[in-house]
């Protein structure tokens, strides 16, 4: 009886091991497909996304494939009764240090906005167009962040419009002179009481 039960137990364990190995194989196949989703077919990408996100979400592309060649800052200014304030950094301007969590959050928004600027900024008849960027989640996230930080930390300062811009400070090439190249990308003003 004991031998029979031991044999049955061994068979169950072998079955569990085979199932476990199979599960691990499928799991890491899907996570691999998810990690390189831009290189797989749409149908595979959909399957990988459904399996992996959000439970096994992963992203190992920090500083890869390349590091950004610029510093970026999200700045804002606000107007009240037609008078604009000075430009101020959204995070540093509220007292958060450069290496703080809030500054890192801001950098995340900057990264997304920079992508939008690279891919969705265009001109029409010589006029720069921001409409595609302003419809993007990246712009909404950045603007909302600026509005919330202002309302939280400068609640005594009323505003009737707000404007954000992203400042890029480009890093000199490795080994070259330290000339600093700064450029700004200003977005149209946000008017809270105007329906768009």
């Amino acid at each position, binding site marked *: 009886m004991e031998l029979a039960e031991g044999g049955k137990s061994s068979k169950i364990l072998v079955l569990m091991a085979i199932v476990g190995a199979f599960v691990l194989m499928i799991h890491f196949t899907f996570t691999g497909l998810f990690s390189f989703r831009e290189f797989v077919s749409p149908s595979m990408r959909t399957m990988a996304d459904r399996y992996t996100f959000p439970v096994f979400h992963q992203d190992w592309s920090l500083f890869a494939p390349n590091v950004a060649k610029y510093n970026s800052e999200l700045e804002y200014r606000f107007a009240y009764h037609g008078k604009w304030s000075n430009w101020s950094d959204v995070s540093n301007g509220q007292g958060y240090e450069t290496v703080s969590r809030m500054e890192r959050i801001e950098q995340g928004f900057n990264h997304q906005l920079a992508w939008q600027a690279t891919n969705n900024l265009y001109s029409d008849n010589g006029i720069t167009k921001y409409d595609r960027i302003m419809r993007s989640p990246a712009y909404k996230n950045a603007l909302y*962040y600026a509005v919330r*930080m202002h309302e939280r930390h400068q609640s005594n300062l009323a505003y009737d419009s707000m404007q954000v811009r992203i400042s890029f400070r480009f890093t000199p090439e490795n080994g070259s002179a330290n000339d600093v190249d700064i450029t700004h990308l200003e977005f149209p003003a946000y008017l809270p009481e105007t329906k768009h």
Partner: protein
Amino acid sequence: MNRIESYVRQLSSSVNAPYSLRLFILLIYLWFVIQAISLWDIRDLIWGEQSVFFRSARPSNLLNNFFFQLVYEPGRYQSVYWIHLISALISLFEFRWSFITRFAAWATGMMLYCAAPQAFNSGILVMLLMAAYSILVYSKSSSRYRNLITNFCRYAMIIQVILIYVFSSIYKLSGTQWLNGTAIHYVLNIDVFSSPFWKETSEYTLIWTITTYLVFAYQLLFPILLLFKSKRNWLLLVGVFFHLMIGVVMNLWDFAFAMIFCYALFMKEEHAKFLMPFRTLRK
């Protein structure tokens, strides 16, 4: 079939490397405790009703509705935060019903992450994955079934760590900066990942070019060098140093310690036992 049965018998008879496994799981939940405490001051900014994040809807399905619930019901974040912190604290200790507290710590950690992904980096992703794999682990079991499950969970953790290095290396290989040695130069010039002191040192091109290649080589060779058990301690020490530098130079302490903690999986048993903080945890 005999070989498979023999291997399964070995896997189910006892937990492989129980001390390093136990140490690693302790470190996972310690990481969550420290992370939660470090976010105490700004938790309302991140998760509260007046959060700085613009909340947008997710496609409706069971998993999204569960893990993204703080996006729709931010008022619940205090409860989720405290459940996460308390369950992570309890999960520092291993007992028969640990899977309950570990699941709670993992699920609430997922909710907090999903409500504010921009507030985190890959460090939390590493720890959430490891926490998921650790739910069913019980290193003190005498049950053959539970030993088998525990050993498979341990394999999942090891494979995941290796894949992190492999995937990251592949991403870097597809660019130019890690291949031409300029990557760290550009990192040092990003204010949020550097400081005035380190930025000044970025002028020493040769040092940082060599460092870039060393870091990249370590990452590429890590999965292979792991096979040399006699040299493993040196490999891990080098890795600890590199990741500590990520913390010191780039202030990415959460990611640095997430990766350093993962090295516990590869430690020798006598070293892991020595590092276990309490006698009761060593039993």
